[in-house]
């Protein structure tokens, strides 16, 4: 997957699409306040200001952050029961019914994209009636009950497992769509064509910032972006820790319409906001 930060407007359509496609539970206000939200995809914001205390004129950078499907994934080797592992196609996959919920993978994920089902958010738990007592005590919002009747459950995507309490979940690169596409191609006795399968986030993106495909296919968009068209802008998140992500970003280039001179750099000095540094780093072409 490649995400172009130049065209990303931070509209969060991808977040909504992902939530709808993957049956990501709605947890309610109280649980969000406890940092228990379940989004598989989030939009990180970085602010670049000339000085730390100057907020009237800031540049914002949006970075959609999702599971990077690292080839050297720190989450995979720490799971004691091998509930998360790497597929032969390079997906970092989660086996929900194997997960025992030690949360070690989430601790060890440098991108913090793994989400734990802290409570019974979906009504899918093996313990009956364990939402109401917590709602009565004020620990949880009643909205989690919405998914408990058969009619409302019709909104759920039948191709995606509804996760129960106590397991970790995260972006699967819409593996259900990949699987469907592969089966269709197989029935037609042909290889999967590039662009035939779209992830939900890619489909929803109004600016086509997200491109998904098979990097081993030299004709694919993703290959062309990384190797031919955008070699200068391609970078990977947190390259220094060598987790080898399968998601690359294309650095944002701003036309500031003014000379970015030595003087201004000096003026920024050591006080530049961290995000500013982040942006500078992004401008450096990647070694990949």
């Amino acid at each position, binding site marked *: 997957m490649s995400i172009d930060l130049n065209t990303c407007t931070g509209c969060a359509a991808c977040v909504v699409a992902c939530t709808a496609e993957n049956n990501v539970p709605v947890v309610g206000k109280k649980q969000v306040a*406890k940092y228990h939200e379940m989004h598989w995809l989030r939009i990180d914001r970085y602010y670049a200001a000339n000085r730390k205390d100057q907020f009237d004129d800031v540049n914002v950078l949006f970075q959609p952050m999702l599971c990077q499907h690292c080839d050297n994934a720190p989450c995979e080797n720490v799971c004691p029961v091998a509930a998360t592992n790497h597929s032969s196609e390079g997906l970092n996959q989660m086996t929900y019914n194997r997960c025992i919920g*030690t949360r070690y993978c989430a601790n*060890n994920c440098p991108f913090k994209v793994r989400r734990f*089902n802290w409570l*019974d958010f979906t009504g899918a738990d093996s313990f009956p009636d*364990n939402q109401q007592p917590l709602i009565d005590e004020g620990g949880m919002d009643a909205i989690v009950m919405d998914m408990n009747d058969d009619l409302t459950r019709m909104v759920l995507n039948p191709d995606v497992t509804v996760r129960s309490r106590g397991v970790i979940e995260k972006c699967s690169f819409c593996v259900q769509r990949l699987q469907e596409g592969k089966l269709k191609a197989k029935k037609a006795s042909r290889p999967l064509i590039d662009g035939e399968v779209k992830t939900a986030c890619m489909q929803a993106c109004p600016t086509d910032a997200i491109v998904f495909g098979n990097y081993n296919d030299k004709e694919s968009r993703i290959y062309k972006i990384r190797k031919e068209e955008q070699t200068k802008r391609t970078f990977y998140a947190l390259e220094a820790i060598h987790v080898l992500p399968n998601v690359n970003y294309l650095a944002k280039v701003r036309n500031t319409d003014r000379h970015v001179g030595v003087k201004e750099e000096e003026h920024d000095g050591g006080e530049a906001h961290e995000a500013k540094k982040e942006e500078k780093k992004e401008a450096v072409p990647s070694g990949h």
Partner: protein
Amino acid sequence: MSLLKYESTLREPLVDGDYSVYREVTYGIGQWNLNKTIGWGWDITNFVWWVGIGHAGTLISAILLLFRQGWRTGVNRAAEAMTIFAVMCAGQFPIFHMGRVWDAFFVLPYANSRGPLWVNFASPLLWDVFAISTYFTVSLLFWYSGLIPDFATIRDRAKTKARKLWYGVVSFGWTGSTKHWQRHESLSLVLAGLSTPLVLSVHTIVSFDFATSVVPGWHTTIFPPYFVAGAIFSGFAMVQTLMLVTRKVMKLDDYITLGHIEAMNKVIVLTGSIVGIAYLTELFMAWYGGSKFEYDAFYKYRIAGPYGWSYWTMMTCNVISPQLFWSKKLRRNVAFTFIMSIVVNIGMWFERFVIIVTSVYRDYIPSSWSVYYRPSIWEVGFYLGTFGLFFTCYFLFSKFAPVIAIAEIKHVLKTSGESFKEKMDVIEKESVEHFAHGHAH
């Protein structure tokens, strides 16, 4: 005479703990104040803390046995019991911190029908399973094999039929024959040999949970020796706490002498200094290593920042205050030792808290940095519950088993005999009235 009269007071935390665990299993870990960034908080802090405490017993029994430290016989039995109960308490946390504890058996590498899906031998958590269960088993065998001759002694002196039967069963028909003793001695030696590497391996492996990760503040190679030293440090402190109470309540002053207390305080000052050096080395490496994330983790978010107070609590309790034990007078002061033993255990609890929480709460990506973490009532309840479990077990032990190794103490009776003779000298010089007054009750 017995510590058991305090048991009912301590049953209450056990009940609280049971209820906390019941809630966690039924409703979920969301009742704890952990979040997407801080995946481990009090649970694993308490786990590492209890495991650390469970180190002293085997160290005293095995390593000091191999080093022929005769003084250990006064304290080894209770220390071993403490080890076993502490490891039992420690085990609660990794089990009940799981989201789906009913599937906990997945971590066991048993033959199953799930095809190639088995345990992940690359995971440090799996190493923990083996390390801790091995340690527990060997410590339990070691402790129990030492108890057999003592149970036989109690059986031989039992006044009631029921006692005789019970202690007869648990002493496995021990007669005290030369053959029995010979086998007992060789078994003890074998178990001591087995336990010695275990003392070092258990906490080394626990430290791998952190050392092998990519989280800044966890990802350091210094952890194994640092954790082992810390474990011995906290273990000895806990032995002190318990022994001083046992000594007072059960009037064992003649068996657990000031010499014992002083020797253990020396170990505390040594290991305390080792952890102190480890803390400073960590800070040095965070600067010298040149990793920005690690530098920030230590200098911005650990020694300073919202959790700075916990770092400095740790520093004060673990590094600064044990240095007072360089003074011989303080080393031999029972009240001071008791206070220090508690201070050290508070400090070591904070060490684990600092390592776990202040590393994960702000790691790589600022958007996921967490709010301030406070434990919820159920996390505290669970922790108190393990105290209930620990003291219930310890008090039952002190009621039904000899807290001093009767058979082993006979080896060192010479020194005790000498101190007894000294005492007799004093008594002989006393006036009759004074003696009568002193021994009237």
